[in-house]
């Protein structure tokens, strides 16, 4: 057994760190609050994301894990995790969680050679951003019941229906979408996976305000939208299998833990500098215990994440599916507890929005409202626990 990085990995880690330290100096203040809101919620936030994406693309760090044939470096899962850990710590944007995170791994396993040549390079260069068209008003956790339809017409599919909660749909260039192509089949058997251009006629994007008022996600309406059949990934009616194969992306949730670590460091500085009732908050035993407990949990999370990465490295994600669900629940719920403890520490100031009065640019005020979303997006905590019980423990469904 050996928990250490190789000398090459140590070197790589240094390079990542230097990059983010330098580049994050250029970040607009919205990045103080972190999260998808920083990226999607404002024009300056989005522009900075695009800038970082192209810089990372030039370095070849977006496509690090891809085969060399498609411009990647055949890097190990561990290398990727090191990158995500560093990026999480510095709160750096630039990685399209959809394009890099989900579409590319899907294309690598399920697309034709021609499709890979067409769709992968712009993702690797950080030039094209995707959004995820999965959830619908009546198909959330029960995604397989979705009802947006695609009907064949000559060389195209014609899409009608509605998606919801589509993060960044108002910014993205393309969408990957799950649609129903077999109307007889009510569940997962009749679904197809398509890529579509968000500029296609017939698409309407309507904003949904998040709890704190930011524009992060959207409703997307499809009115006779034409998508070339050539943009279908995998076979018709086999979309569900395609999504399951593409689960093989890095799912260690490491970024949550390193981001937490940074937040804890910030809070430690804050409690040392801040006096209340004549004493530094750092001398308050309750605060000390709470921060210490979170620091311990963050270490646990990191160990868990590297263990998942190792399982993936050895055997692909199917081996680690329940562990990835466990890490997601553990990570997002820990992040939520950290926001709540941070809010307790800030006391009356935890409620202050970004303004001259707000500590940490209002980070705890916005995060207090959007930390719940992490327990819901990408499969709710309840669904993740179901998976741990079913897959991890073999309990009856």
């Amino acid at each position, binding site marked *: 057994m050996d928990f250490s990085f190789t000398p090459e990995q140590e070197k790589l880690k240094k390079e990542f760190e230097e990059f983010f330290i330098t580049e994050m100096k250029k970040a607009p203040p919205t990045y103080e609050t972190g999260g998808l809101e920083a990226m999607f919620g404002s024009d300056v936030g989005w522009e900075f994301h695009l800038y970082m994406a192209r810089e990372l693309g030039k370095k070849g760090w977006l496509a690090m894990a891809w085969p060399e044939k498609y411009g990647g470096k055949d890097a190990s899962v561990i290398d990727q995790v090191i990158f995500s850990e560093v990026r999480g710590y510095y709160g750096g944007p630039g990685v399209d969680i959809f394009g890099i995170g989900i579409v590319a791994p899907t294309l690598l396993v399920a697309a034709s050679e021609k499709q890979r040549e067409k769709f992968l390079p712009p993702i690797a260069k950080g030039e094209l951003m995707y959004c995820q068209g999965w*959830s619908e008003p*009546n198909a*959330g*956790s*029960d995604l397989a*019941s979705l009802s947006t339809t695609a009907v064949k017409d000559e060389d195209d599919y014609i899409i009608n229906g509605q998606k*919801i*909660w589509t993060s960044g749909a108002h910014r993205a260039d393309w969408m990957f979408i799950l649609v129903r192509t077999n109307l007889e089949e009510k569940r997962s058997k009749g679904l197809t996976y398509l890529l579509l251009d968000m500029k296609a006629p017939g698409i309407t994007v309507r904003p*949904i*305000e*998040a*709890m*704190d*008022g930011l524009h992060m996600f959207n409703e997307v309406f499809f009115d006779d939208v034409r998508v070339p059949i050539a943009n279908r990934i995998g076979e018709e009616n086999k979309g569900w299998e395609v999504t399951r194969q593409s689960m093989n992306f890095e799912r260690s949730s490491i970024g949550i833990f390193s981001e937490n670590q940074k937040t804890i460091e910030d809070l430690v500085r804050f409690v040392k500098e801040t*006096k*209340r*009732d*004549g004493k530094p908050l750092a001398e308050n035993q*309750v605060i000390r215990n709470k921060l210490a407990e979170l620091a311990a949990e963050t270490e646990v999370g990191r160990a868990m994440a590297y263990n998942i990465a190792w399982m993936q490295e050895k055997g692909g994600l199917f081996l680690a599916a329940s562990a990835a669900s466990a890490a997601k629940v553990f990570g997002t719920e820990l992040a939520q507890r950290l926001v709540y403890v941070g*809010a*307790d520490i800030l*006391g*009356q*100031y*935890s*409620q*202050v*929005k*970004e*303004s001259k*009065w707000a500590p940490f640019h209002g980070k705890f*005020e916005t995060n*207090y*409202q*959007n930390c*719940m*979303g992490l*327990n*819901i*997006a990408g499969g*709710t*905590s*309840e669904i993740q*626990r179901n998976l741990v019980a079913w897959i991890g423990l073999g309990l009856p469904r």
Partner: protein
Amino acid sequence: MNLDFNEDQEILRSSAKNFLEKECPKDLVREIEESKEGYSPEIWNKMIELGWTGIAFPEDYGGYGGDFMNLIVLMEEMGRNIIPSPFFSTVVLSGLTILEGGTEEQKKEYLEKIAVGEIIMSLALYEPNGSYNASGITVSATPKDDGYVINGTKMFVNDANIADYLLVVARTEDSDNPEEGVTIFLVEAKASGITCNKVPTMGLDNSCEVIFDNVSIPKANILGEAGKAWEVIQKSSEKAIMAKCAEMVGGAQASLDMTNAYAKERVQYKQPIGKFQVIQHYLADMMIKVGTSRNILYEVSWMVGQNIPCAMKVSAAKSWINEAYKFITERGVQIHGGIGTTRECDIGLYYRRAKTAELILGDTGHHLENIAQEIGL
């Protein structure tokens, strides 16, 4: 023993409920929240017409003389159906402080004005240091000529932006015991030297920073006796805390009700999500927290209303209800799923308000420390 409300109180409850449901639907709440004034003068006037502004005061001072539990009933309904209004600042925080610490003349003059809805008031208590204790009071009032000059900054003063008068809690004397030398001044909110800035907060509840720059105040504007105000604040705070708790219990009940209804109606995997046992257990825990919150609310409110000393129980109630309300709204969001994280969904409104309410008159940490001291630690 009789743990029931009387008939008048039941009538008050149902008429308040009907009024609030009709006059203040949630879309309007969100609209009012965003407005500069942060309240609706039109609805406020109707509340005055209903006599609500006189509910907490004896008849001698223009009120309706009813017992403290009437206020609890009303606050509970105002929590169930959130209504952005200066009621808490004016009637509860300021009115009860004047009732506790004012001279006979001051009570006659100001309580009557509050009761008839002539003035909006607020209590300027906390400061940028964020403390809930007497040691946090550093705004100074220095004797000059026949009065005082106030300097310093107050923070998180709700409704100062729309207030006619402020009760300013200031230090008139430095002393080893921070609870001594504190004095309350009745100050015109628009007096020269006062700057009021609205601080943007999660609760969108008219929270303000109020800066005092050499504000001259005549001696006559001291509320009650100079130097003895901390006792007054502590006494009137007990009532105000219980009133805030009532509002929170109402909000917690509403959050449970709307989430319960949603769990019955939202279908996933061909069944209402309320059929999943994990959702049932969340809701059961929520119900237990609302029930226990209401139990302690009524008991301690009754004691406070009867002037029975119960500082420990007041802190027990506030700390328990703080956590219960946050728990219930947090689980409420989770059970709602995606829609729960949006601004348009009502559960988010209560989730935000639960946090803001915790911060008013002592967060959980503050009250747990009080309890620790009360039980002899």
